[in-house]
């Protein structure tokens, strides 16, 4: 234990990451390069998010980590344990108790508050990467606000599938300036970043980029005039355990009966809801 500094990373590294975070906050949606450190999980397993968490965590923080909407998945557990062992802070599964929330794929169903920080793990920060491979050129495109490539990707999906098929990482305009990949959260969660009470930070460890959406920033999902942005619809479907319909649902198959059923994707929210219902 004592071999490691508080929060695993040395102070200089944390300072550099915090500086990148501050720059990101100052220029909403702009990808700030940073020197991604080696940490004891593989690149692509949330190293960007983890580095932000480690750089920001203080002794009084409470951490929640989610992976695929679940607090109990292996990756989420491991990240939580690493932070806990190197800082001694409390962890939680309850969104309302957490001050730092690290996540991939989801923003919790419980609305975030202004004293909370949402940290998202990002595999591919560049929304134009599929149309332009060269980083040099995409940087120029961002500088010139040239985002026809992002619209082209959506147009191609409409041509092929009759709708925008981007299930996750649906690109957004941040404060009408930078187009940003909101990490692989479903489209369902895109509106939660718009005018959010909480600070939202994005870390891409492999791609060595940090970016941010400060609280109360306009975040608009890209769309065409005749193909407006729509979130996933779960019409006629409800969570089997809670009966909720206004949440993001996961599809399951009962292996014995072959019947398809749905459950809340956000497991801690489902648990809280059930406990409240039972009056615990």
């Amino acid at each position, binding site marked *: 234990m004592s071999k490691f500094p508080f929060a695993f990373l040395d102070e200089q590294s944390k300072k550099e990451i915090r500086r990148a975070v501050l720059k990101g906050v100052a220029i909403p949606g702009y990808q700030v390069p940073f020197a991604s450190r080696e940490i004891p999980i593989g690149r692509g397993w949330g190293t960007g998010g983890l580095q932000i968490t480690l750089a920001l965590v203080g002794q009084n923080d409470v951490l929640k980590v989610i992976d695929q909407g679940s607090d109990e998945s292996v990756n989420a557990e491991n990240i939580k344990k690493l932070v806990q062992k190197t800082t001694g802070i409390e962890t939680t599964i309850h969104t309302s108790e957490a001050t730092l929330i690290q996540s991939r794929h989801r923003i919790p169903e419980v609305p975030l508050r202004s004293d909370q920080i949402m940290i998202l793990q990002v595999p591919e920060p560049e929304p134009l990467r599929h*149309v332009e491979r060269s980083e040099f050129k995409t940087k120029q495109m961002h*500088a010139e*606000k040239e985002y026809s490539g992002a619209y*082209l990707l959506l*147009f*191609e999906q409409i*041509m092929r599938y009759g709708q925008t098929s981007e299930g996750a990482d649906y690109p957004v305009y941040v404060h009408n300036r930078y187009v940003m990949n909101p990490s692989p959260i479903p489209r369902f969660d895109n509106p939660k970043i718009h005018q959010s009470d909480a600070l939202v930070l994005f870390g891409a460890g492999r791609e060595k980029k940090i970016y941010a959406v400060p609280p109360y920033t306009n975040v608009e999902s890209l769309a065409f*005039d005749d193909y407006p942005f729509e979130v996933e619809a779960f019409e006629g479907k409800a969570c089997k355990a809670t009966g909720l319909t206004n949440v993001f649902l996961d599809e399951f198959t009962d292996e014995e009966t072959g019947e398809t059923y749905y459950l809340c994707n956000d497991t801690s929210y489902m648990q809280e809801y059930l406990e409240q219902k039972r009056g615990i």
Partner: protein
Amino acid sequence: MHVEQPILQIRNLSKQYGEGCTNCLQPNAKLEKNFCPVCKTVFACKDVSIDLYRGEILGIVGESGSGKSTLMKSLYFDEEVTTGEGYLEDFNNGSLNIFTQSGQQKRYIRNSLLGMVYQNPMLGLKMSFSSISNIAEKQIAAGNRHVGHMVSRSNELLDQVNIPLKRSKEPPKNFSGGMQQRVQIAKALSSNPPILLLDEVTTGLDLSVQASVLDLIKTIQRELQISMIVVSHDLAVIRMLADRTIVMLNGQIIEQGLTDQILEDPQHAYTQQLVYSLL
């Protein structure tokens, strides 16, 4: 008398690859063709001046390495010019030098006022995106955000270049060379640009396909009154398409005039050689 204004004026355009040295930057420098033997700088275009009028087709001929393609790439901002000025009548009434504009302005000119068809379709198309998206790309870039409008415009263009609509959602990589070239032409036309740049569009296509592509270009020019600059090393193509012709050698214009004049009565020794080498 009313004097017609050119739609595009290029003045003293030069493009060099390399820094240049005391040997080659003198007015009468000794070069090997367009190459400085001392500092290895290549002078791809030297002091090229061109006028293009509305609705005309201007041909540019010359051997490979004569600077034709560099000139076209410079006009389409694929390459940055070393020195020189360019004025477009449709851009601020021709009062601003297009080569010194900001990146954003250059993009606007490129997307809204120019169309380019490259010799190699790989350069002009996104091979794995559907053809219709390729055509819509230029419209999106020009600011269109309405899928329905873009689809109908793209289909109209595909029809114009004789590509069956049922193949519109196929990527160009599935197409033959001639079809790819026709998709490129449709893409170049999609934002209704007043000027079209065609760089060796029929090179590498077989004769019957060449004929249909040339026919298409001629029809487009007649019906849409678009000005074109056609680069080719093939004099037959130039003879068929161009009203006026410019002959380039080693990065410089050595002769220009009406196409018939150039082909029937060439003045410069190189042009004579070029014309008589035509089988």
